[in-house]
C-alpha cells in the first residue's frame, strides 16, 4: 500500500469511539487515494450511526458513495474494486443486513485467494455495527461476529477501545486479505483519551485490559465495558480479576488468554452472541485442550439468552450479559474446585 503522509495529529485529547472511527477513515482517505467508502446513507446523512459525518464534504461523492439499497451489491462491488487494486471500505449498516451479502463475504471474499491459487487478493475492508442493547428488536440486534470468526480467509476485528477504533482501520487496509470490522452499537458514544499522534495498534493480538491474579475474564467488543465493571464488583469482594480483550476474533490469538489462565487458574468467557456454537465455546474448548491441567474449576460462560432479541427494554436487558451476571458467574467459578 502506498503510504503518503503519516497519520495527522488531531490535536483532540479526548473523543468518542465514533469520532475515532471517523478520524481513522479521514486519515486513510487522505493517505491513500485508492481508499473510498461506500454503503447506504454514508454521504450527506453521515452513516446510520453518524460515523462518516462530514466526510462527503471533504472527499466528495466519488470517494464517499451512497449506493443503491443492496448489501449483496455493495459487498460484491467492493470485492471487484479490491481485485482491481482499489482499497474499498464498505459500510454495512448493521450485521443483520450483512446476511444479505453472506454469499459475497463467505463464498467470494473469503475464498478467492484460495480459488485463484494464491493469485487474487481481496484487500477489502467491511465495517458494520453489531450487537443489541438499544431496543432495536430481533432483526436489528444480532451479534454474529462469532459466526464470521468461523470462516477461514477472513480477518475479524472487534475494536472495543478508542485507540483500537482509531488504529485498526489502517492496518486492516494494508492487509492483503479481507477484513471485517465489528463496531458495537453501544460503544459509539463512549468517550475517552485519544492518543495524539494516534497509537499504532496491531491487528494480531489480544490485549490485557486489566491485570489481575485470581481469575481471567475473557471478552471482546461491546461486552468489554461491562466486564471491566464486573472486575470492579469482584475487586470489592477481594477477587482480583484479569480482563483479556480478544480484539482479533480471527485468526484468534490463543497465547494471550492461555498465558493468563495459566497464572490465574480460573476463567469466565463473556460473549454477547448466543451460547451454543459461540466464540465463547471456542475459547472454552481451547482452554480445555491446552490448559486443562492449569484449571482449578470448569470454565464459566456468560452469553445472551438463546432467543431472538426481545424489543421491550426490560426483556432485552434480561436477555443480555450484564456486569452482575458476569460477577455471579465469576463467583461460581471461584467457588468451584
Amino acid at each position, binding site marked *: 500500500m502506498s503510504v503518503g503522509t503519516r497519520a495527522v495529529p488531531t490535536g483532540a485529547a479526548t473523543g468518542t469511539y465514533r469520532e475515532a472511527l471517523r478520524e481513522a477513515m479521514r486519515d486513510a482517505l487522505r493517505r491513500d487515494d485508492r481508499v473510498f467508502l461506500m454503503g*447506504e*446513507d454514508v*454521504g*450527506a*446523512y*453521515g452513516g*446510520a450511526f453518524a460515523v462518516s459525518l462530514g466526510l462527503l464534504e471533504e472527499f466528495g461523492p466519488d470517494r464517499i458513495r*451512497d*449506493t*443503491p*439499497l*443492496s448489501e*449483496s*451489491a455493495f459487498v460484491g462491488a467492493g470485492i471487484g474494486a479490491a481485485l482491481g487494486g482499489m482499497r474499498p471500505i464498505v459500510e454495512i449498516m448493521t450485521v*443483520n*443486513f450483512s446476511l*444479505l451479502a453472506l454469499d459475497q463475504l463467505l463464498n467470494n471474499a473469503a475464498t478467492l485467494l484460495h480459488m485463484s491459487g494464491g493469485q487474487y487478493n481481496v484487500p477489502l475492508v467491511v465495517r458494520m455495527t453489531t450487537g443489541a442493547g438499544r*431496543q432495536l*428488536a*430481533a*432483526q*436489528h440486534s444480532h451479534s454474529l461476529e462469532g459466526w464470521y470468526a468461523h470462516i477461514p480467509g477472513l480477518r475479524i476485528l472487534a475494536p472495543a477501545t478508542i485507540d483500537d477504533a482509531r488504529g485498526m482501520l489502517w492496518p486492516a487496509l494494508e492487509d492483503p486479505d479481507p477484513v471485517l470490522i465489528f463496531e458495537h452499537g453501544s460503544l459509539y458514544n463512549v468517550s475517552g483519551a485519544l492518543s495524539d499522534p494516534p497509537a499504532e495498534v496491531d491487528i494480531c493480538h489480544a490485549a490485557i485490559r486489566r491485570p489481575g491474579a485470581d481469575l481471567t475474564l475473557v471478552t471482546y467488543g461491546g461486552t468489554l465495558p461491562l466486564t471491566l465493571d464486573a472486575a470492579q464488583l469482584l475487586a470489592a469482594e477481594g477477587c482480583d480479576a484479569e480482563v483479556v480483550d480478544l480484539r482479533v476474533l480471527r485468526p484468534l490469538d490463543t497465547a494471550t488468554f492461555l498465558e493468563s489462565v495459566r497464572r490465574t487458574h480460573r476463567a469466565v468467557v463473556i460473549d454477547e452472541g448466543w451460547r*451454543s456454537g459461540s466464540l465463547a465455546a471456542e475459547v472454552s474448548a481451547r482452554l480445555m485442550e491446552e490448559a486443562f491441567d492449569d484449571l482449578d474449576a470448569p470454565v464459566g460462560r456468560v452469553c445472551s*439468552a*438463546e*432467543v*431472538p432479541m*426481545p*424489543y*421491550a*427494554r*426490560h*426483556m432485552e*436487558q*434480561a*436477555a443480555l450479559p450484564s456486569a*452482575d*451476571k458476569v460477577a*455471579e458467574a465469576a463467583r461460581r467459578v471461584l467457588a468451584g474446585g
Partner: protein
Amino acid sequence: MPASPVSRVAATGDLRIVGQAGSEALVQLLTPEGERVDHPDYVVDAPAERLQSLYRDMVLARRVDEEGTALQRQGQLGLWASLRGQEAAQVGSARALMADDMAFPTYREHAVVLCRGVDAVQIMAIFRGLTHGGWDPHRFGLAPYSIVIGSQALHAVGYALGVQRDAARARGPARPAGQTTGSPVAVAYFGDGAASQGEVNEAFVWAGVYNAPVVFFCQNNQWAISQPAERQTRVPLYRRADGFGFPGVRVDGNDVLAVLAVTLSALQRARDGGGPTLIEAFTYRIGAHTTADDATRYRSLAEVETWKLKDPLERVKAFLHRKQLADPAFFEQVGAESDALAARLRRKCLGMADPPALAMFDHVYAGEHPPLRRQRAHLAAYLDSSPDPGEVPR
C-alpha cells in the same frame, strides 16, 4: 376505524372500472386541486358514499400516525415510522383488497393495517415493544410488518404460488390449469429503496415465470432514508416490470381514487389468471424516515412544501365540497370520530402492561424444547436472586 370487519366485497360493486395497467402516463383521476379528470384506461364512476368513506379512512389513518409520532416523542413508543403523505397510496390500495387477499406490509403501512380491520392499538403495542406481531395474519389477511428491506416480496410470491396450487386442486384434474379465477391475490408492499434489493427483483422473476397472482405495490415516496429515488433507478420504477414480462403502471399515489382503481384492476387481472402487475404509487414521505431521523440533514424544506401542496386528503375534501357530495356535518362527524379514536388510542396505549421478561422464551419454537427450558429456569433463578431486580416484571 377500530376493528371494523373487512367487507367481503371490499371495493367492487359500486365502482365501474374498465381497462388495465400498462399506460405510459401517470394515472390520475383527482388533481391536487380536487378536479375530477378522466383517464382512458380507468373509467371510474365513484358514488359519494365511497369517496366519503375513503376520505374518512385517510383522516383516521393520519390521526393514528400523528398519535404514533406524539407518543414516541413522549417516550411511550420505542420508534415510529410516519406514513404522512402516503395515506392515499395505502388506503386506496388496501380498500381494493378482498377479505381473503393477503397483504405483506412494511413498517410504514399503518393505513393498510387499519383498512384490514386491525385495531390501531395493536400497532402501538408493537412499537411499544409489547409484542412483535400484534394481529392474527390469517384472520386479517395481513402478514406482520417486514423490517428487513425487501424480504416480503418473495413471501408474497410464494403465497401466490400456494393460491395457484389451491385453485388447481379445487378444480380437479379434468379442468384446464393456469387460471385462478376468483381466488385470492397476494400483495407485496415495498418502497423505492427496496426496489434495488436482489430479493425484490428475484420476486419479479418468479412472479413472471409462474404467472403468479401477485400485485407488487411500490410506494415511491422519493426517499430511502437519506437517499433520493434517483440513487435507486435510472428508469421510472414501473417500467422495470416490462423487462420481467408483466405490466407496470405509475399512479398518482396521492390520489386515492386513482390508486383504488389501478389496484382493483391489477387485482382483477391476477384473479383472472393474468398474472402479476407492478404498481408504482408516486408519492412523498412528508415526515422524516422515522422518529430517529432528522430529514433536514439531506433534503430541502422547499421540496417538502411542494409536495404538501399535493396533499392526498385535501383534494378529496375539496372535491366533496365543490360537488356538494358531503355537507359540513359529515366533516364534523369525521373530525369527532378522529378525536375519539385518538383519545382511545392514548388511553389504551398507556394502559398496556409490560410482558414478563421470561416471555422471551415463549415463541422461539412452536413447542417445548429442553435446552431452552433449562435456560428459562436459569434466568428465572437469576432474576429472583438478582440484587437489583428493579422494575423488571418476571
